[in-house]
């Protein structure tokens, strides 16, 4: 099953339409998309506007591959569960998010070989055709790096007995 997600905050019709068109053209009936709050409706794929966190987790666990916007929630969740992920970044100029930070995120995680990236709809269709060869990156732990945890622990412990009020 291919699990498509736009994240919890806003729809991303440009990506979902491209997946829907591809699924129709290829006769795929194993695609489920979480499309966000939008007026547009897919014609070929199963969908839901929003999933509860347990429903979302169930889809992640059940799927073979994740197709998502280049949001960190989606990327971290895929890496944590050892699922291959293909991301398409939202564009600021199309008001799909506030700026082009997802393009930078996608490029950086692509360079780290953590994700596959389709920068536009055409590329998305081509990469969807090659989806079965997509490999998952090394699974990551469910927690932050030990050095960041240590920094946060120090910060929290430093708060002991240092109340200024």
């Amino acid at each position: 099953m291919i699990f498509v997600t736009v994240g919890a905050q806003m729809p991303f019709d440009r990506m979902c339409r491209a997946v829907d068109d591809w699924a129709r053209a290829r006769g795929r009936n194993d695609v489920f998309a979480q499309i966000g709050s939008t007026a547009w409706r897919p014609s070929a794929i199963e969908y839901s506007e929003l999933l509860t966190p347990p429903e979302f987790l169930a889809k992640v666990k059940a799927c073979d591959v994740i197709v998502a916007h280049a949001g960190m929630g989606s990327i971290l969740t895929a890496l944590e569960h050892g699922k291959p992920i293909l991301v398409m970044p939202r564009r600021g100029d199309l008001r799909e998010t506030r700026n082009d930070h997802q393009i930078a995120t996608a490029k950086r995680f692509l360079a780290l070989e953590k994700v596959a990236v389709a920068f536009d709809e055409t590329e998305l269709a081509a990469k969807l055709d090659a989806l079965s060869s997509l490999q998952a990156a090394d699974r990551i732990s469910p927690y932050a790096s030990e050095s960041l945890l240590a920094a946060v622990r120090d910060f929290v412990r430093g708060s002991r007995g240092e109340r200024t009020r």
Partner: protein
Amino acid sequence: MSDAHARPRVLAVASGGGHWVQLMRLRPAFEGCDVTFVTVREQYRVDIPAGAAFEVVNDATRWNKFGLLMLAWRLYRIIRRTKPDAIITTGAAPGFFALRIGAFLGIRTAWVDSIANVEEVSLSGRRIGPKATLWLTQWPHLEKSCGQGPSYRGAVL
């Protein structure tokens, strides 16, 4: 000092999506603390450790002034009620206001800039970071990219 106060009281704040996922990845650092998690979706309650408290506030962007005002007021009430020793956030708007209020009240504050901010520190981070006790980026190349801050001490992965 009472025994109850021997456990640091922590307010851990994040908006939805990636901000919340990143905050959850910091959970082991809060062991031994009395934590109140603050976020924007009631459904995230399933993610918090047993024994932790949970509060929901409205989300808001910088284009929704009324929403921001409401958010700031709710956070102020939560901070006055829970009396945290430390406030930590992974962003975005709820974390910004929680730190703003916390800094004003003399509470220790930490801003962990989202790992999504790859090319530059977030706008909120640039504004609140210098006022925070601890200001972190998750990318080594952004360390001290805004004067004295932020610092780099690792990432959520």
